[in-house]
């Protein structure tokens, strides 16, 4: 059982259907979408099939609509029994990956407006990530500028796998805008499927995709490091959301070792990569791909090398646990306290500032 006052860093409100977004579009785009009939499709992502059990815990299904689409259900399942101090809404939606950058931006604006009206204004415990057209960095930066004055938006949401590795300089307008407003960039599991989710090509099964998302996180993180994003934007923080966590130590060893040998190639990368990651990168711990025994868990936490990195999350309504067992077993008490509250407050300045 989670103590009251925890901070849930990853919940997923779902847009029930595209018609819901119509009042939140401007006049041009409302007419455009109606004339094309796009309001008849829910624009669900391939990365998260709505009917797959892992994406919708059976006892968290609302009476109607997709899991996560009902505020009353979220209150009944998470907010009222767990009494978190805050819960951060991360919307995953096809808006982020439409081929038309203008249509993508219009739908993202509508989703952010909908988040304000239907979620943030209706429960004071809710916070949200700004949804942006991830393949259009200039339009994404515009949307960050538009939403940043509302301080209930505490983060910018990206996907781990988009058209370009995330560190590439074309993406820097997003990081510049996020840093300017004190917003961490939250990188969520998933792909816009411009490329196969596995580096080896298109697999046959959803199981492969889901497991391969960890490769996507490694690629995103290594790109941010190598391109110098952490040096160029010294106040920027990054949160890896729903990554599984335990792939990280091996990647840190590998990037450290390789950097020692060839760092002249990336002279701006002037610190040990693992030290940069420990200082600037945080990870939500749902799911937590934990080893089964306490000694192995202790070794893993030692390899992670910092108690500041893990953030508590339920990942509602995705199905990673039953009942109220939202925490991986066997975590030390000191780490748990930091994970449930303090690390989130340190990561998201807008959770404490007025």
């Amino acid at each position, binding site marked *: 059982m989670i103590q009251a006052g925890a901070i849930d860093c990853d919940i997923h409100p779902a847009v029930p259907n595209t018609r819901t977004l119509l009042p939140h579009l401007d006049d041009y785009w409302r007419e455009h979408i109606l*004339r*094309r*009939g*796009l309001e*008849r*499709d*829910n*624009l*669900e*992502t*391939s*990365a998260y*099939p*709505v*009917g*797959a*059990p892992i994406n919708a815990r059976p006892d968290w299904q609302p009476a109607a609509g997709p899991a996560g689409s009902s505020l009353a259900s979220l209150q009944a399942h998470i907010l009222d029994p767990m009494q978190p101090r805050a819960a951060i809404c991360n919307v995953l939606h*096809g808006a982020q*990956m*439409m*081929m*038309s950058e203008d249509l993508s931006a219009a739908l993202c604006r509508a989703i952010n407006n909908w988040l304000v009206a239907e979620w943030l204004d209706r429960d004071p415990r809710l916070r949200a990530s700004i949804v942006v057209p991830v393949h259009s960095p200039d339009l994404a930066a515009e949307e960050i500028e538009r939403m940043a004055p509302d301080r209930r938006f505490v983060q910018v949401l990206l996907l781990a796998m988009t058209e370009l590795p995330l560190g590439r300089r074309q993406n820097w307008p997003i990081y510049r805008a996020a840093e300017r407003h004190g917003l961490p960039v939250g990188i969520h599991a998933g*792909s*816009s*499927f*411009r490329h*196969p989710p596995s580096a080896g090509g*298109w*697999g*046959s*099964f*959803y199981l492969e995709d889901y497991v391969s998302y960890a490769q996507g996180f490694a690629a995103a993180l290594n790109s941010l490091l190598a391109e110098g994003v952490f040096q160029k934007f010294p106040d920027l923080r990054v949160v890896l959301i729903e990554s599984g966590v335990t792939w990280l130590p091996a990647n840190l060893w590998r990037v450290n070792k390789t950097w020692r040998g060839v760092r002249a190639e990336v002279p701006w990368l002037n610190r040990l990569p693992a030290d940069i990651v420990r200082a600037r990168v945080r990870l939500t711990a749902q799911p937590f791909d934990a080893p089964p025994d306490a000694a192995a868990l202790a070794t893993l936490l030692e390899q992670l090398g910092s108690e500041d990195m893990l953030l508590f999350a339920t990942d509602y309504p995705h199905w990673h646990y039953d009942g109220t067992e939202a925490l991986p077993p066997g975590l030390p008490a000191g780490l748990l306290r930091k994970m449930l509250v303090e690390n989130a407050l340190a990561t998201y300045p807008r959770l404490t500032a007025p």
Partner: protein
Amino acid sequence: MNVTLRDHRPDNPAQSHLGFIDCDVHPFFRTPADFDPFLSARWREHRRSIGNRSRQGLARTSPYPRMSPGNGMRGDSWPKDGGPPGSDLDLMREQLLDLFDVRYGLLAPLVGGAAAERNVEFGAAMAVAVNEWQCAKFL
């Protein structure tokens, strides 16, 4: 089935008619559950849970949506019962087969996702189901 077109005689020999053959007619399902009678229990369950998975970001529609409702359908082709264009055989007769006295319409079902499916066994099951469905519903 093989048909020897050369031997065809119009029912009304006095009628002047080219007797043309429409080589691209698209039948459509009313709901994806229309395929369920032609799927095994195992693939029915798969269709409802994992569903079609192709190599694009959106699960059920194109990331380049067409410019008219129904993903590029003609505005006057929507059946009155609310189903999608191509799903109503009577309307297909009224608007195409009878109106133009089409001798043969060749069905090209762009449905079921078999060709784009990443899970090849599910793709094969959907191909069978779509063929059975078009036989039962249209032929």
